[in-house]
Each structure stands twice: as C-alpha cells, then as structure tokens.
C-alpha cells in the first residue's frame, strides 16, 4: 500500500519523463514544414526548394493570376454559404437533440448527424458524384448549388458539436424561468436561449468555414465546369512544375485559416 502510495505521490502530470522532448518533437514535426513553406514563398528563384534571395514576386504573380483569384473568391463564397447553411441546420439539430425529453432514436439521430466525421471523405465524394450526376443529367442544371449543398452537408457535424456542447453547458433553469413567466416558446428561444448560445453558434460557423475552405476530395468529385476552388486548383498543379506561387497561395490560405481560428478562440474565451 505504502509503496503504491509513494509511487503515486511521485507521479505528476507536469513532470512525466520524456514528455517535454516528445512534445517538442511533435511541435517541430507539425510546424517546421509550414515555416519552411512560408519562408520559400518569399523565394526569388523559380524552384520551391532552392533559395535564391528575398522577393515578393510570387505573391504578385499569384495576385495577377486570374485562375488563382477566381478560385480564391469561389472558395471563400463557397465556405461562407456552406458555413451559413450548416450552422442554421446544426443549431436546429442541436436544440432538437438537447432541449427535448429523450425519445426513441435520439442516439441514432446523433450518430446520423455526425456521420460525415466517420465515413471516409472519398466514399462521400464518390457517392455524391453518382447521385449528383444523375440529378444533373435529369435536370440539366449544373450550378454552384451542388457544391454548396455538398459542403454544407459535411460541415454540419463541425458546426453541431460546439453548439451542442454550449447548449449542454447552459443553465436550463433560465429557460424554465422564462416559461414560468409566460414567455412563449419562441420568445424564450429569442430572448434567452439564442443570446446565451451565440458564442457556440459563431464558433460552429467558423469551424465549418475553415473545414469547407480546406476541402479537396469531395470538391474534386462534385465540381462541374468552371467550379475550381483553391484547393483543387493547387491539386491540379502537382504533376507539373510547382513554383513558389503555390507557397505564396498556401501562405495566404494559412493566414485566412489562422485568422478564423483565432477569432474562434477569442469569441469562445470571452463569453465562457
């Protein structure tokens, strides 16, 4: 007993043997390639791994490349619409799964909502290719709408999880009190639930935005003529010569993602 106790006393979460070195190795492995990518985006030469001096020419080249600008704008619009739709749906789903008395099938609904997290992207991609192709042939309509729909679908769980977590952490007595004071269900939702839930909703929307912005596999399968997004544009360059222009674009994309993720942290920290 004492031996066990003694051993346990020694154990401290802060000072596990090798913890620091493993953590450092992980950080280096995660961030060193990204730092190198950013450094080489300022390369003067036309090769991505031979340093020839500092220059902003690849940022200028990317800025002047119509295909890049076009794909970037499309990616941002797509991410915005997908985040908007998926957040609205996710909010409704989160309320529907937390603010009701438990009913049969609640767990399976929860699993269904999170299905895009479990099913491999390639499977979703191929499935959507087949279904959308049939719809496109039948209706003759090939618009941007399919991409928005596909992205909104796989973004739902990413928006759902933070919203649901927020709802579960919220004090239910406030809503009960509102109901006691004869507030209608809509009024309770509008004046009590929604303001309290707002940080969760924003957090969910930002996550969804980033997830949509980064997606390659599903987009590649669903996109129709003229629906290149930034990630699929970059994929198309791989087989041929890659110039630091790709680094420059990646750096900008990284900045956008970082910005959104930082906003996410600021929003969630302030209110909780």
């Amino acid at each position, binding site marked *: 007993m004492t031996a066990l106790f003694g051993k346990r006393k020694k154990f401290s979460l802060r000072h596990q043997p090798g913890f620091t070195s493993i953590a450092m190795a992980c950080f280096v492995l995660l961030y060193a390639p990204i730092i190198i990518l950013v450094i080489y985006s300022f390369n003067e030469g036309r*090769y991505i791994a*031979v340093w020839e001096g500092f220059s902003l020419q690849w940022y200028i080249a990317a800025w002047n490349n119509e295909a890049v600008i076009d794909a970037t704008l499309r990616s941002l619009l797509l991410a*915005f619409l997908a985040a908007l739709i998926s957040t609205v749906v996710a909010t409704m789903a989160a309320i529907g799964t937390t603010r009701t008395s438990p009913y049969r099938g609640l767990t399976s609904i929860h699993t269904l909502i999170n299905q895009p997290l479990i099913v491999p992207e390639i499977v979703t991609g191929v499935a959507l290719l087949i279904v959308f192709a049939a719809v496109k*042939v039948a209706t003759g309509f*090939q618009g941007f709408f399919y991409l928005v729909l596909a992205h909104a679908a796989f973004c739902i769980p990413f928006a759902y999880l933070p919203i649901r977590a927020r709802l579960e952490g919220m004090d239910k007595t406030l809503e009960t009190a509102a109901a006691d004071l004869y507030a209608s269900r809509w009024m309770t939702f509008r004046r009590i639930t929604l303001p309290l839930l707002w940080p969760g909703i924003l957090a969910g929307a930002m996550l969804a935005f980033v997830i949509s912005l980064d997606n390659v596999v599903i987009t*590649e399968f669903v996109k129709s003529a003229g629906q290149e997004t930034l990630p699929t544009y970059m994929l198309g360059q791989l*087989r041929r*010569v890659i110039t630091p222009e790709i680094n420059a674009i990646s750096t900008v994309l990284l900045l956008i993602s970082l910005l959104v993720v930082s906003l996410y942290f600021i929003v969630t920290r302030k209110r909780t």
Partner: protein
Amino acid sequence: MSIFRKAGFVGVALLASVGTANAAGELNLYNWGNYTNPDLIKKFEKEFDVKVTVTDYDSNSTALAKVKAGGHGFDMVVPSANYVKIFISEGLVEKSRPDQMANFKHVAPEWNNPSWDPGRMYSVPWQWGTVGMVVDTEVYNGDINTSSLVFDPPPELQGKINMAPEMNDVLALAILYHGGELCTTDKTVLKKVRDTLVAAKVHWLSMDYGLVEKMPRGDFAAASYWNGAGFRARLAKPSINFGYPKEGYLLWMDSLMVLKDAKNMENAKLFQNFVMHPENAGLISSFARYANGITGSEAYMPADMATAREIIIPDEFKAAGHFLPACSKEANDIYTAIWTELTK
C-alpha cells in the same frame, strides 16, 4: 443583424465577380492542371467572342470517372493516348472529324494517323513527349542513350537514381530493355523484367515526381522521366542531359477531344480547329514546354525550345520510340503484381 447584411453584400459581390462574362458563346475545357496557356484562351475568346472556362483534373482516371458519371458540364477533354481509346470505345466523345477541318493540313505526318485514333476522326494533337533518361553528365560521362543506366546502373550512378512512379512507364521500359513486346504476357520475358527491376531497385534512391526542383540541386544524378522536365532541369543546370535509350523509350501524346454531351458543340469544334494552327499550337508549347505535333509551330516557340535535344528527337533515335498501347487485362494483372512486389 448588421453583420448579416454586410455578409450578404459580400456574398452578392462575390457571386457577381465569379459569374460568367457576357460573351456570345461559352466553352468549357476540362484539362490537366497548369497545362493551358492563358494567352491561348484569351486569343480564342477575342477571335470568336466566346467565354472559355478551364477546369483542372490531375489524372486520366479522374477525368474518365467524372465524364462517365455524366452531368459534368464540360465540352472538351484532353486525355493521354491510351485513354483516348477508352473514351472512344465507351462512346463518350463526339466524332467531330478533325481530319476534315481547315487546319488539319498543319498536323505533322507522323501524327495524323495514330493507332489510338485511326484517321484522326475524334482527336487533335495537344502535346506530346517522351520518357527517357535524364542524366547529370557531371556525375556520369559515359553513353546516356541506354536504359541500363537505371536497370543495371554503372557504379557512378548507383544510389543516385530516381524513377517517375508510373507503373506502365517503368514496366514498359524494362520490357523493351529485355527486347520484349509492349503488353507482352510472355512469362520468360516478364520473369527477366521482374528480376531486373528487383535487382535494380537496390540502386534507386527514390521513386518520386518533382525532378525539376530536385535534380539541379543534386538530390540524384539520373532518372527515368519526362523530356519536358529534363529540359527544364537542364535550363537550371547545364550539365543535365537527356538520353533516348537505344533499347527503346516511350512516347506519349495528349489529344483534345469533344465530349458527346457537350453543350457548346460548335464552339468545341472551332477550338479543335483553332489549336491545329501553328501559331496557337506554338502558344500551347511555350507555356507547358512540350512539343505539339503541328508543323511550323516551332516558329512561334521560344528560341531555347526549337533547338532543344529533349523536345526535338534527333533522327538517329526516332526509330526506338514506342507508344504505350492499352494492354489486355491479363497483362495488366501481371504488371500490377510485379509493381506491387517492387514498391512494397
């Protein structure tokens, strides 16, 4: 709510900016990424008042899968020779009869009747090239026109070799090295091929893309790779040269075809005729740096290309070039088995 309103404005502005311009017609080209010269597109748009949209793919199989599924919205596609045959036999492309178009007379004689599209009834040459030996002559100064450089490497090159990770190319080169027929199922030849590859792999440093970046800085000294990349590598380091294996090397060609369910059929045919003009074919090559199969287009290419040994095959090596045919399933199964053993 002002956030929403602002976001709405941004959304509308974005929608407007990615919407189509108001030209008389449209054309949707589905092509390899980074393969279409924007100047070529602008020239066509100006000449015919057609708004052209280019969408990328990264492999023949992706392109085939999407076109086969239908509802893609593309008018034209640019597959490689063996896939041209598949697109035709699957009935996915329109018999647009390039052979009867005005500019067909510019197609070089060796390209106007290819085995994968006899008589050129469907396809127009886009670009072609070779798979051969890219060698740094600073490291090895012997004969570079042999595939023994990668299959039975001299001591100077051992451990300094890169192979493009393309199953069909590597196996075909090895079969030619042993004097076999492409697509052969002859077990005695394939046994030799397998043994050679397994023994050679010990001397290979890598099986990877990205030769243009890696070879000039000295990551490796020899490679089995595409000629256009070899050409660009030489521009970065003059001691790099391109060899045409006398045992046999590979030829490839990507061809432009009109899809059967194209919405802009007439514009697509106009575009086929358009790219057969030497000036326009020259634009294609100036951008992606491969030859195009159109006589007289050299005049419109940068000077460094018109004389490049990598792009213009010297006469003495012309006979050793082979096109990759589409092989039987039996052959493909054996090749896949050898490749799997090699890459595991």
